[in-house]
């Protein structure tokens, strides 16, 4: 009996084995393709940020570096931005929300960075101090956004606002390098005033 159906059983076993082999190969290939796509995306982001351009603001006399994939859009001082009215500056963006920028508030009432920090935290959104650095020789305060809820808080460490005072003018460098936090250092170090 067994001998009679031996060939059929063998054929069925071979078919089952072939199915599992094909299935494994398919999933193995699919996994590799996904991994390749992810790597490609990461490389794209990194290569974009590896190439930097220099923006010179003739009106306010400063220079700053920005990733080459972004477009520089000078701020129009006549265009009020909500409750903030910068007197000058620039934004750097792709087609969507901006990635970084500079806002200049001339003759600001703030005598110190701590005063600015207290005032900002009195408004709706909360900032938290990260560290103090020096930008173009001026002491600067690096802050990031925090959303405080009753039971927890959400921090946005990649959404930074870095400010410094120069002769009564407040300079704010805002950055959102979600995938390349190291890029902040490049931006801060690149900021210089024309002589």
């Amino acid at each position: 009996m067994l001998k009679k159906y031996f060939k059929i059983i063998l054929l069925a076993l071979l078919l089952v084995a072939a199915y599992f082999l094909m299935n494994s190969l398919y999933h193995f290939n699919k996994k590799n393709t996904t991994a390749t796509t992810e790597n490609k995306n990461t490389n794209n982001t990194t290569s974009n940020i590896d190439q930097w351009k220099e923006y010179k603001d003739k009106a306010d006399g400063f220079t700053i570096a920005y990733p080459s994939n972004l477009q520089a859009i000078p701020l129009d001082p006549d265009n009020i931005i909500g409750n903030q009215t910068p007197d000058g500056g620039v934004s750097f963006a792709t087609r969507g929300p901006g990635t970084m920028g500079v806002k200049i508030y001339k003759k600001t009432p703030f005598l110190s960075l701590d005063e600015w920090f207290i005032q900002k935290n009195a408004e709706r959104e909360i900032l938290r101090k990260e560290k103090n650095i020096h930008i173009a020789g001026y002491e600067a305060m690096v802050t990031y956004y925090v959303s405080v809820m009753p039971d927890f808080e959400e921090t946005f460490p990649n959404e930074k606002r870095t400010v410094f005072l120069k002769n009564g003018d407040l300079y704010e460098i805002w950055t959102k390098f979600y995938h390349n936090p190291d890029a902040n250092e490049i931006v801060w170090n690149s900021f210089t005033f024309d002589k």
Partner: protein
Amino acid sequence: MILLKRFSNKYNNFRESERHVTVFLQSFFQKNRNSIVTTIFTIVAIFFPGTARAGWHDWSQNVRNQAIVDEAGYWDTGDYGGQCKTWVQQQVVPNASGLTGLIPTTSSNYCYWDYGAYVVGRAGYIEYAHPGEIVQMQLSSDYDSGPHTFVITAISAYGLAVAESNWCENNCELVGFRYIDFDDFYDQVDCFTIYYVL
């Protein structure tokens, strides 16, 4: 003595009546506890707006979604809203529900939120999203791969209307309203999750 007996009878009658009233009140409160609590919450909500809405969690999902659409609609273009996620987390949903802390933190890859007891997320086509649902997404590399959050206010056969904050190149932190064609939406995102709030 007669006087004392009369007084004693009256006192006993009074105690009996008092017992009846107490039993009646206890019974009434036990039977109508839910209605009483709802009524009190409603009165509080009417006279003290901003406190917990009566039975947000008891409302149907359609009503909750509509409340979120209504709240987003109360805002005007150019109002100060703050960062996109913060506006939804701190303003829109709390104002609609009267409850804070419903929207959890965002995961590190920006495509979805961390676990939250009062949000339900799903992947799938944006065409099947509903007004009042919230989208958490990571933008595509053409849009510099950052996160974004918005409220869906309407869906048509070709696209969706959204309310959002800080969709601008200069970190304006202002509220705005956009119509996004479905094709444009898919160009703009790398990944996204659609959420409804419980």
